[in-house]
């Protein structure tokens, strides 16, 4: 019976080509506009660390100004996003977490012995060795550096696969030497292509920026006087007596280090919370941490929400797109009603020949569904056009966001069919109420 209804529906669509085209166009435009916005929002809200969401935590400590809480642009939980250098190095001494990472962004000039490669500035992540294990970064060659490199200056470097290709071609460069800021660094590893989007592990410099090009051990701060190439906030410009220059920066209350831990069990998490509580208490005794004792361990999924990666503009656009779809549905209701009522005599005859109200209703609902399916297919094309438009209008990092995956393709069709079935409900019900006798008389 369904097959017959579908063939009836197709015949009926061909019978009123203009009205049908109008309806399909309306559904397609509605689906195209809403799916363009929803796809961007869906990709923006993705959590690249979903598989480790239950064990990873971003660490925040409230070491901020006793006079006012940390508040930058009204986002977040009133605790600094990042840690001070002194707190980060103190936390690193804990042996509770399975893995832990202290890190930030920096930049080095890169020169090689090969005169073919022009010197360039590489975005660098200065980090402890657990970075790759904690964030599940796969290695192509070699591996991470020795543990000692996080405490004592060791000139080791891990390259991204693109940087490796840029300097060494397709060669395995482990053991080779490159010059960073004029000093010889030995390549210990090359990672696979790895570019999580949004960049959940460091949202300070734009959530859709590319991953860094090189990775450098955490033990090199003093040697290169490394500071952050990212967000750096301070409140106490006075500093410690008698300490000057770079050392003063390391001992200051400036926050610039991102800190993540991997805690495998609830017991481990409890232990770690206790450890942090004790650490803050002990710091309070030394005159630091004068605000009420406060810290936060936040899972990646919540971290993305807290950082408002999906910004307010995107939310407004999402509502706007859904309202648009609603207009298209109302439009389709009106047009379907017109179309069905025009065919009322046909339905009257079918009723007279013994079709039940249910069959008439189903038949017309299926016709609406067919319109939805066609509208959905056209809507996918419009969505692709819309996303291409967004890629043109935005900068590089957003390219990865304005992409449709299969889930979104199916969502588009489902949305279109759902919208048109919804639109068809009333018109189909109305036509199924047709009184057959009226039409039999006039025939």
């Amino acid at each position: 019976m369904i097959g017959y209804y579908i063939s009836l529906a197709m015949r009926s669509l061909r019978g009123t080509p203009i009205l049908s085209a109008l309806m399909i166009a309306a559904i397609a435009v509605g689906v195209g506009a809403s799916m363009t916005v929803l796809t961007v929002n869906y990709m923006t809200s993705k959590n690249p660390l979903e598989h480790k969401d239950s064990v990873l935590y971003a660490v925040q400590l409230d070491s901020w100004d006793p006079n006012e809480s940390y508040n930058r642009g009204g986002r977040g939980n009133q605790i600094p996003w990042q840690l001070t250098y002194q707190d980060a190095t103190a936390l690193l001494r804990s042996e509770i977490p399975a893995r832990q990472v202290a890190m930030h962004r920096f930049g080095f000039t890169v020169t090689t012995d090969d005169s073919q490669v022009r010197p360039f500035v590489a975005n660098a992540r200065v980090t402890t060795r657990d970075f790759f294990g904690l964030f599940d970064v796969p290695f192509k060659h070699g591996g991470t550096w020795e543990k000692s490199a996080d405490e004592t200056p060791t000139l080791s470097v891990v390259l991204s696969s693109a940087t490796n290709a840029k300097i060494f071609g397709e060669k395995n460069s482990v053991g080779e030497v490159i010059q960073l800021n004029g000093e010889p660094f030995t390549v210990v590893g090359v990672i696979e292509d790895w570019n999580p989007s949004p960049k959940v592990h460091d949202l300070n410099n734009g959530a859709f920026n590319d991953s860094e090009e090189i990775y450098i051990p955490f033990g090199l701060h003093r040697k290169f006087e490394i500071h952050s190439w990212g967000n750096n906030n301070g409140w106490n410009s006075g500093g410690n007596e008698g300490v000057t220059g770079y050392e003063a920066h390391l001992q200051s209350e400036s926050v610039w280090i991102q800190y993540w831990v991997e805690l495998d069990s609830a017991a481990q998490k409890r232990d770690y919370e206790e450890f942090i509580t004790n650490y803050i208490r002990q710091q309070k005794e030394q005159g630091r941490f004068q605000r009420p004792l406060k810290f936060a361990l936040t899972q990646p999924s919540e971290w993305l929400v807290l950082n408002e990666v999906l910004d307010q503009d995107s939310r407004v656009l999402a509502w706007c797109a859904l309202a648009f779809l609603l207009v298209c549905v109302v439009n389709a209701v009106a047009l379907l009603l017109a179309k069905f009522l025009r065919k009322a005599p046909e339905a009257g005859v079918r009723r007279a020949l013994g079709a039940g109200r249910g069959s008439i209703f189903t038949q017309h609902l299926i016709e609406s569904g067919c319109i939805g399916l066609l509208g959905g297919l056209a809507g996918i094309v419009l969505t692709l056009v819309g996303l291409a438009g967004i890629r043109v209008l935005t900068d590089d990092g957003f390219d990865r966001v304005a992409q449709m995956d299969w889930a979104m393709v199916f969502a588009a069709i489902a949305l279109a069919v759902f919208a048109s079935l919804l639109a068809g409900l009333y018109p189909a019900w109305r036509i199924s109420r047709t009184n057959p006798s009226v039409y039999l008389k006039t025939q």
Partner: protein
Amino acid sequence: MFEIKPMLSALWRNKISALLIAVQIALTLAIVSNSVTIIQERQQKIDRPTGIDVENLIGITFMPVPTEYDMAGAVVADLDLLRSMPGVIDASVTNQLPLSGSGSASGYFLEPNQEIGDLTANYYHTDPHFINTLGMKLVAGRNFREDEMKILGAHDNQISDVAIVTQQFADSAFPEESALGKYLYSGRDDHPTKIIGIVDRHLGAWPSWNLAGNVVFNPMLITGNHKRYLVRTEPGQRDAVFKQLEDKLAERDPQRVIHVETTEENKRQSYSGDNLMIKMLSVVVGLLTFIVALGIVGLTTFWINQRTKQIGIRRALGASRSNISRYFLVENSIIAVTGLTLGGTAALIINEAIANNFSQPPLSLSLLIGCAIVLLVVSLTAALVPALRAANISPATATRSV
């Protein structure tokens, strides 16, 4: 003469269809008026004067390769080179590039040794050429002198003796009196920084910051591991100068990596989010109006088809063509005005919600009325074609198949 009463009873018989059109128009007005409000606000933001000669500015960032590097010497030599290039008006050293989205801010106090109550401003470390380089106007006081330049290390206490501020910052710090000759302090510090000059306007590094326009300029050179220059060219010379910059600087000293960008490009990138919002909302507004117009065409056509016989009878009974067209246009207006009234209310409610939850601008009544008038015109235009066709229905139709 408008046959309102029979029209209303005819509408009542088609109440569901009429209501559907009215609801569409209502939703459209609600969405369009709110979208246009947001579009207007963003456009005004982008169009704000920057206070600088955006079109003719170029920013240069360089990073020396060796760790031991005579930064102060390099800056002097580079600036001499840049200022001597043909087509260049002036050049300055700077810690940040205007409108680039990347820069530094600090809290300023009006009394020494304060802890709370600071005013935040974006700050520059630059040199006496900066007013001319940026193309700004000094409205009070004087420019920096060469002997006021401080050369400091990246981690030294970077407090200047003198500063030039924007009028906006001067007004917010000293609303009652002139800021000229007054002092600024860092938190928990008693070193005074004297305000010696005021420039009319400069948006600073982050145009989307809520305090954009609060800018403090210090005569200072920080010998960090990278340095920036700003170059202003003569009108029309920017692209020609841009092409030579990297080579010229590399020729003077090849031991470094140089990046060149135009301020115009920086500005474009800083506003790209606002631009995207404007474009997307404009597309929504356009498509929505189009969809509603299509719906009106479709439904009016359907009604006219349904009533072909009645129209024929009316024509046979003496109604003129214009009577018939007018009937459908007035009918459409009744529906549209009903929808617009509903929609106006909805628009104000929605605006209240998005203004509260998503920090968007309030909707003005004049804009709402403007949008309503445009939609009324669109609705009448959409109804016009079928209404004119209806007028062509021959009176003879009345005699057929009765």
